[in-house]
C-alpha cells in the first residue's frame, strides 16, 4: 500500500472496496446477514443440503453394517469412488490456504475480500475428505488405529514407511493449522459482532468465541506476526499435503502411478480445482448476500487468471505424462496411457481433457474473464473435469498385469449416493457458516481500503 491514491488513479488501478465506504458501513454491511432472519432461498438450499447429508449418513450406517461389498470395488480396482472423492475434496481445500497464505506472503491486497470464505471452504472440504477417508477403511470405528498411540497389544505401532500414514499426519496437521489460522482471523470480527449485538444469549456466545478481544495494539502487534508465521508455515504445508496425497499413488509400483511428475501435477491440479470452487461459491455469495462491492470483478478476474495458469500447468502435465510413458520405452507404462486415452475409459479421459485444458482457455480474453456467466460455467466445468482426473487415475488400473484379471469398475447406486452425499456435508457446513459468521474478513478488508492522501503507510 505504498502507492498514493493519486498514483493509483493515474495508473487506472481500481480500489479493492468499491463505493467509497466508511469503516462503519463496512462493518454493518458485512455483518448484516448474521442479524437478519435467513431468506427463503437460504432455507431451501439448507434443507436440501441437510436432507442429502442425512440420507448420506444413513447410507454410511448401512455400509458399516453390511460392508464394502455394496460398492463397485473389485480386484483390479481396489480403490473406488472413496479415494476419488477424497483426493477431489482435499484438492478443493488447497485454494483456501493458497489465498490465505501464499498470497499473504506475496502481499496481494485483493486476497482480503475472499480469504475468509476460501479458508472456511478449505476446512469444510478437508473435513468432507476426512469422512470419505475414514469410511473407506472398511471398519471406520477402528479409524483411530491410524495414529500411533501406546497400547496393550505388545509393542505395536503404525508403519511410518507407509504413505498412508504420512497422509494421516499430513491431513491432520493441515486441518489443525488451517483451523487455527481461520479462527485467529475470525477473532476480531467476532469481537465486532459481540460489541454490536444487543441480544443477551448471542452476546454471551460471541463473547466466549471472541476470546476477550478488544483490539489493543499490543495484541495486534503479536497478532500480525502470528498471521505471518502461520502463512509462512502453511505455504510448505499445503504443498506437502497434496504431494503426500500423490505419494499414495506414486510410491506404489503400478504403471501409470509410479511417476515422479505426480507431486507437482497433483499440487497444480489441487490449486486449479480449489480456485474453481472459490469462483463458484463467490459468484453465488456476492449475489445472495449483496457483497458486490467487496467481492468485485477484479477479485474474480484475478482468480480466473490463476485458474487459467494452473489449467495450463495441468495440461502440460497431461502431455508430459504421455510423452514420458512413450519415451521411457516401458511397454507397461505405454500401455497404461494408451489405455487411458483410448481404452474403455476414454470417455472419462476426454471429459477430463476438455474440461480442464480446453475450457479455461476462454480466460485469455478479458471480456470473458470478467463475464459472470462465463466464469460460473467454466468453474463448474473445471470441478467436473478435476473429479474426472482423479477418476481416470484411480480407475485405469482396471487392466493390470494379468489379462484374465481385467474388469471394469462399475459404480453402484451407493457409490453415486455417497458422492452426492459429500456435497451435502460440504454445503451444510458452508451454508451454516454463511449465516453465523462474517463471510468477509472485516478487519483485513479495512486495511486495504482507500485512505486519505498523505496517510502513513
Amino acid at each position, binding site marked *: 500500500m505504498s502507492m498514493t491514491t493519486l498514483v493509483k488513479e493515474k495508473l487506472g488501478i481500481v480500489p479493492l472496496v468499491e463505493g467509497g465506504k466508511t469503516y462503519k458501513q463496512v462493518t454493518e454491511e458485512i455483518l448484516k446477514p448474521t442479524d437478519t432472519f435467513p431468506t427463503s432461498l437460504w432455507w431451501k438450499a439448507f434443507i436440501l443440503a441437510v436432507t442429502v447429508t442425512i440420507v448420506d449418513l444413513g447410507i454410511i450406517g448401512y455400509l458399516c453394517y453390511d460392508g464394502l461389498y455394496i460398492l463397485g470395488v473389485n480386484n483390479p480396482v481396489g480403490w473406488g469412488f472413496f479415494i476419488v472423492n477424497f483426493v477431489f475434496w482435499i484438492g478443493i481445500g488447497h485454494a483456501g490456504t493458497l489465498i490465505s497464505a501464499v498470497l499473504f506472503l506475496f502481499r496481494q491486497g485483493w486476497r482480503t475480500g475472499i480469504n475468509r470464505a476460501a479458508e472456511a471452504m478449505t476446512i469444510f472440504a478437508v473435513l468432507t475428505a476426512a469422512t470419505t477417508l475414514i469410511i473407506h477403511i472398511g471398519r471406520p470405528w477402528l479409524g483411530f488405529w491410524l495414529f500411533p498411540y501406546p497400547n496393550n497389544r505388545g509393542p505395536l505401532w503404525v508403519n511410518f514407511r507407509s504413505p498412508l500414514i504420512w497422509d494421516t499426519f499430513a491431513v491432520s496437521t493441515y486441518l489443525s*493449522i488451517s483451523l487455527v489460522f481461520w479462527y485467529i482471523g475470525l477473532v476480531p470480527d467476532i469481537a465486532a459482532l459481540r*460489541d454490536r449485538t444487543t441480544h443477551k444469549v448471542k452476546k454471551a456466545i460471541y463473547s466466549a468465541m471472541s476470546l476477550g478481544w478488544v483490539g489493543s495494539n499490543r495484541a495486534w502487534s*503479536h497478532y500480525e506476526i502470528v498471521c505471518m*508465521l502461520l502463512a509462512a508455515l502453511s505455504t510448505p504445508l499445503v504443498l*506437502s499435503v497434496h504431494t503426500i496425497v500423490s505419494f499414495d499413488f506414486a510410491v506404489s509400483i503400478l504403471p501409470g502411478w509410479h511417476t515422479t511428475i505426480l507431486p507437482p501435477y497433483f499440487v497444480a491440479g489441487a490449486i486449479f480445482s480449489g480456485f474453481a470452487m472459490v469462483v463458484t461459491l463467490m459468484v453465488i455469495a456476492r449475489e445472495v448476500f449483496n457483497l458486490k462491492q467487496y467481492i468485485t470483478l477484479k477479485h474474480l478476474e484475478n482468480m480466473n487468471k490463476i485458474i487459467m495458469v494452473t489449467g495450463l500447468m495441468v495440461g502440460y502435465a497431461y502431455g508430459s505424462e504421455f510423452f514420458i510413458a512413450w519415451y521411457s520405452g516401458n511397454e507397461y507404462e505405454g500401455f497404461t496411457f494408451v489405455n487411458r486415452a483410448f481404452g474403455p475409459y476414454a470417455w472419462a479421459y476426454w471429459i477430463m481433457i476438455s474440461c480442464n485444458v480446453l475450457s479455461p482457455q476462454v480466460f485469455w480474453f478479458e471480456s470473458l474473464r470478467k463475464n459472470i456467466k462465463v466464469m460460473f460455467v467454466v468453474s463448474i466445468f473445471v470441478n467436473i473435469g478435476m473429479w474426472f482426473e482423479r477418476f481416470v487415475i484411480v480407475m485405469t488400473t482396471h487392466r493390470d498385469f494379468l489379462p484374465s484379471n481385467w474388469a471394469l469398475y462399475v459404480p453402484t447406486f451407493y457409490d453415486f449416493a455417497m458422492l452426492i452425499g459429500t456435497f451435502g456435508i460440504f454445503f451444510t457446513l458452508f451454508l451454516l457458516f454463511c449465516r453465523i459468521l462474517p463471510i468477509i474478513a472485516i478487519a483485513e478488508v479495512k486495511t486495504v481500503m482507500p485512505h486519505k492522501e498523505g496517510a502513513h503507510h
Partner: protein
Amino acid sequence: MYWFKKEQFHFYHETTSGVFGLFDTPEEILSAAHKTREKNYTGFDCLTPFPVHGLDEAMALPRSGIPWISFFMGIIGCAFGFSFQYLVHSVDWVINFSGKSPNAWPAYIPVTFEATVFFAGMSAVVSLYVLSRSNVAFRKPLHPEITSHRFALWIPSSSQNFKQEEVVNFIKSLGAKDVTVVK
C-alpha cells in the same frame, strides 16, 4: 548477538483505571500515539478495529518475540517427529520389511516435516493466546465502536506523570471526540 529480549514479549494490560479518548481515523490515532510518547506517558495503549501500520513504532513496541518461540518449538517438533519414528522402527518394533534397513530414515521425512510445522504453528498460536490475555473471555470493552470504526487512545492511571485533569485535557487537545475517565 542476535537474540530475543524480554520486551519483545509485551502483553495486553487490562484497561481498569485510566482515561481514554476516541478518534475517527487511523491517521489521528497515529499522531496521537506519537505525541503521547513524546509527553512521556508510559504503559499507554491504542485500541483499533484493525492493525494500523506504524502504530508499533509510534508506541515504541518492539517486534513481537513469538517467532523465537515458534522457531525453538519447531526444532523440538522436528526432533520429536524423527526420534519417535526412529524409536518405533529401530528399537521398539523392529520388523523386516523386504530386507530393508530397520532405520530407513528417508521414509521418516514426511512425518518429521509435519511434526515440525505442527509444533511451530501451534506454539505460535498458544503464545498469541497467552500474550493477548485471551483467557479472560468476558472482558468488558471500553467502547462498542472500537471494534468497528473508532480508534481509542488509552492512558492508564499507573502511567508516570498521571494527573487526571492534565491527561483529559491532553487527549482533548489531540483532537479526540469523546474523552472518558474509567475508574
